[in-house]
């Protein structure tokens, strides 16, 4: 959906262009699956990882004050400023999750795509994480959440798309719970939630 794969048939458009050749990749902040559960040995710090958010804009030229400010603001926004110089592999799942969010925010994305962001994150951090998503959404950022937890989906999302190879449902959560879309889509193996701005 964000252009990682070319569709076999049909079309996926992103900001008006076919997604796989979109020129707007700088507008998407992507948080991959499993970031909370995999801790690599790569000796990279949180700040180095968040700085990557600026890299698509600044591939080789010097970082300006604006770039450094964007990184600092993003770190503060997800409340991990004090962890900036820690190694990312040494953080807890929830903290690592926030570091990836900060990277997305540092890129000044207006669309955040999150692939099962709270797998491996404890319940308390999970609630705080969804609060953060709500705040960001209110600030004008569209959030696309891929999530298997139907409870999460129906409480937090403003729009639901239920997908399992094909689209079974697309609409608001209230209608979604009343339909059989979930059962139709093979027990709801995958639901895609759309926080629409």
């Amino acid at each position: 959906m964000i252009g990682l794969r070319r569709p076999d048939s049909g079309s996926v458009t992103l900001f008006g262009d076919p997604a796989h050749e979109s020129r707007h990749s700088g507008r998407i902040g992507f948080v991959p699956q499993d970031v909370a559960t995999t801790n690599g040995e790569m000796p990279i710090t949180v700040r180095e990882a968040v700085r990557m958010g600026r890299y698509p804009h600044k591939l080789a030229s010097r970082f300006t004050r604006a770039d450094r400010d964007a990184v600092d603001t993003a770190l503060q926004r997800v409340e991990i400023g004090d962890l900036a110089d820690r190694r990312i592999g040494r953080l807890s799942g929830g903290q690592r999750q926030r570091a990836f969010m900060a990277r997305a925010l540092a890129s000044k994305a207006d669309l955040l795509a999150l692939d099962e962001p709270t797998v491996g994150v404890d319940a308390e951090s999970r609630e705080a994480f969804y609060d953060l998503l709500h705040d960001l959404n209110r600030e004008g950022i569209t959030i696309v959440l891929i999530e298997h937890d139907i409870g999460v989906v129906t409480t937090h999302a403003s729009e639901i798309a239920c997908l399992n190879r094909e689209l079974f449902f697309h609409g608001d959560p209230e209608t979604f719970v009343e339909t059989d879309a979930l059962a139709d889509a093979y027990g709801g193996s995958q639901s895609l939630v759309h926080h629409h701005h």
Partner: protein
Amino acid sequence: MTTLLSPGPATPSVFGQVGSVDGIVRFLLDDVWGAGLDLLAGLSGIDMLASPFMQRAYLAALCIAVIGPLVGSFLVHREVAMIGDTLAHSAFAGVAAGLFVNATLSVTVAPLLTALLVAAVAALLVQTLVDYAGAYRDTSLAIVLTGSFAVGSVLVTATDGGIAVGINAYLFGSLATVSRTNAAILLVMGVVVTAAVTLAYRPLVYVTFDEVGARAAGLPVTRYNQLLAVLTAGVVVGAMQIMGVILVAAMLVIPVAAATSVRGFKRSIGAAACAGLLATTTGVTLSYLYDIAAGGTIVLVAIGIYAAIKAGVRGRRYVSRRRRTPDRAVSAATAATSDGGDDK
């Protein structure tokens, strides 16, 4: 003043066509490095440093120590360290091809240049295989590794056996193979690799840390992977003269592994280069003093450094843990014995 061996008629100048590069290389070899080590030899009284042979060996040691970890850091943390070994073996096929051409045709080519060409082509092939093979990428690496070594061994025996003598030096590495031309090639390689990694540092780090994220951010991930593979080929061919085909991958991996406990990726690359430099200079010196294989000595010193650092980190962690919770540990122990918990 000693100069680094005057270029006699037997050593063809690779850079003859490019006059300015030739001039710069000559200046760096003789007037900077050679003169610098002569001065150092005069000051310290260590005669070894004044010998042109050892001056070239130390230059090679310096270049290998810098470019090995510089490229190896990205390979190790992408978990494709085997690419180095694979490309070393395809470089061997390249050396064999060069020696074969020299023996059978009337043209003269430097085996190091054919090695570079073959390894670069193999690098692109390997990267394509890794991209398509997915989870079974070590299988495709093993096929290219053994396949290219097979090509090399066939070429070596296809002539009357004349080139088999020369091949030994490439297999196991030797200080003697670092001729003036080869030192110049390694120096140029060092500058090119360092410049390329400096320019492409950000996208390379992004791709190494999070390939899917880099793709989503619109970076041409495949292009950077190919760049990394070709740079690896360059490093392997450059370091091969001293290290030998079989051991060259060690310099891409061991110093990097030794530096993983450093906080920050840039700093870890610097630390790995320091570890590498200690290993190569110590190894070259020991190899000269005791007349033992340079490559093997360097690898053993590098492993020693790696083990010492790992033990040091473990030890420090253990001590700090003990210091943080001495009272609790003691009271827990007495509690356990007093109620007979752990003793029985």
